[in-house]
């Protein structure tokens, strides 16, 4: 058994055949990196296809169906087209950082895949700070926008870049705050360990508010609808990547699709049980399939959301974040912390990793979350009613007076 050279003991194998251990580690890491980095690359081809198909079906049309069976090769055709398009660099652009931006755009998303647990046995690098690594890499993404917007030597690109950065910075706060909750419940930052902790019950059922916050913040971070103001084709053309053409623009687009998929993947890993599923302990490879299925469901939900919900205005965007999501996330952390202490005092903390042991904690936390949700919806109702009353007052006012300007009703 020890003489068989498989991926898991490749290092030992190479060392036995006389290679320097450091070099063996390096080569194995290289192989692993290439393997892990190819998965998102292959996935992005299907992602673009499914995005177009779903958007088309929602709009009662067919979508790409000519190139290849069911239009599957459409993305490949697009990629070939983009490579052969002329690459126009605007005059006065800062050459080095102009070319650097699309590379960072793509690389910063692929880097996240290094810590994602695919199966109980296969993970790129099981860092002890997996979740924090994801947050750190996500925060690097703001740099690429800044340099893309700046180096294009175009004031609209710069304006778009500023707005995009304001959006990304703002929505990072509820993103990270909502990640605190599974860290508290699981007691670990490592990705593989967090998935293992969900053997009894998915964290989604213990912390639905956190899961929803995380999902919404991820949608805003990746620039998906309804938060896609910044690449709204009808409004500011393409925002910070106006001046990019050819494959560099393709890199930005591919990076964005991959980022959306990676965000859904992370939601599944942290909240929906990752690779857990029936029979995964005996046949670890099944974990891949379960992870893929769950991510596909979440991603489809995001796609349908894109086609359904109208775009949010920039001031509504900021209000939503700072006046709603951040207080809710903070309150959620405190409520969960309190309930966890209560659970610990009552002695109901699940010791073993099965469903029955996790049930009491789940129920208590779920009740807490539902209460929080009820309070939030109460607030939303109150604000909504105040807004409606104010609108009606303005309506009556303008019915009588045709010349006074309508005051903008803030919230």
């Amino acid at each position, binding site marked *: 058994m020890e003489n068989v050279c498989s991926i898991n003991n490749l290092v030992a194998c190479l060392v036995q055949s006389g290679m320097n251990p450091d070099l063996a580690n390096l080569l194995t890491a290289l192989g692993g990196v290439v393997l892990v980095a190819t998965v998102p690359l292959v996935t992005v081809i299907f992602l673009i296809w499914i995005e177009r198909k779903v958007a088309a079906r929602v709009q009662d049309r067919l979508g790409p169906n000519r190139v290849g069976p069911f239009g599957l090769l459409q993305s490949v055709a697009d990629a070939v087209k983009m490579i052969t398009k002329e690459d126009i660099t605007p005059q006065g652009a800062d050459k080095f950082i102009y070319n650097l931006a699309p590379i960072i755009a793509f690389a910063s998303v692929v880097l996240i895949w290094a810590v994602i647990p695919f199966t109980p046995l296969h993970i790129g690098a099981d860092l002890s700070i997996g979740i*924090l690594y994801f947050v750190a890499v996500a*925060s690097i993404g703001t740099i690429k926008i*800044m340099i893309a917007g*700046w180096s294009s030597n175009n004031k609209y690109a710069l304006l778009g870049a500023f707005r995009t950065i304001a959006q990304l910075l703002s929505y990072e706060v509820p993103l990270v705050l909502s990640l605190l909750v599974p860290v508290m419940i699981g007691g670990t930052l490592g990705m593989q360990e967090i998935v293992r902790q969900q053997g009894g019950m998915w964290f989604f059922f213990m912390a639905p508010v956190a899961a929803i916050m995380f999902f919404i913040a991820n949608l805003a971070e990746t620039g998906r609808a309804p938060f896609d103001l910044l690449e709204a084709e009808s409004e500011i053309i393409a925002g910070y990547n106006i001046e990019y053409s050819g494959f560099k623009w393709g890199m930005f687009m591919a990076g964005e699709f991959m980022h959306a998929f990676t965000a859904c993947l992370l939601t599944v890993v942290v909240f929906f049980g990752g690779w857990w599923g029936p029979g995964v302990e005996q046949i670890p490879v099944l974990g891949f399939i379960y992870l893929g299925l769950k991510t596909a469901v979440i991603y489809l939900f995001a796609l349908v959301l894109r086609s359904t919900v109208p775009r949010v205005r920039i001031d509504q965007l900021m209000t939503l974040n700072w006046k709603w999501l951040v207080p809710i996330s903070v309150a959620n952390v405190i409520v969960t912390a309190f309930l966890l202490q209560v659970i610990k005092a009552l002695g109901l903390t699940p010791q073993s990793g099965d469903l029955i042991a996790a049930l009491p904690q789940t129920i208590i936390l779920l009740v807490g979350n539902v209460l929080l949700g009820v309070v939030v919806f109460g607030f939303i109702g109150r604000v909504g009613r105040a807004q409606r009353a104010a609108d009606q007052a303005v309506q009556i006012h303008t019915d009588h007076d045709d010349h006074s300007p309508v005051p903008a009703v803030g919230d």
Partner: protein
Amino acid sequence: MLEFNAQSVAFIVFALFSLGGALGVVTTRNLIHATLYLILSLFGAAGFFVLLSAPFLAAVQILVYIGAIAILIVFAVMLTRSMTRLRELYNRQWLLSGVVGVALFLLLMIGVILPVWGINGSHVGKPVSDVVTTTVDLGIALVDQNQYVLPFEVASLLLTAAMIGAIVIARDDRE
């Protein structure tokens, strides 16, 4: 004394990042390039934290320094006119600052070399230890009555004061 293994290669790479980035910051004429060099230098510092078995601090370095402070620096740089062609690289106090810089460097060298290779030093290069305090220990220590709970709360107060001060200064023109 100096073995050629993965750790020393990594150390050299990160040292190049840190020092090269810092050098780039002070020698380039373009402020935006200077910010990018600063980001490179901060990456080097994060790498050092990893080598010292403090991955939490490495992630914090990237999250806070590069993710927040570097972006704010870029915003501040945008307010500067003619930032792409700085006119003066050296001011008239270069001799004094050079002397101070060299003196500080010598002080640092003595502070680093003497405890290890000096007369009473330990004479061993301390390798990165496997037994280090983890992030969980940090978390417990932060709220432990006998350890760091007071600085923890004072830090929060400091952050609040910082935010209030920043808002007061930045919104001054709206009165």
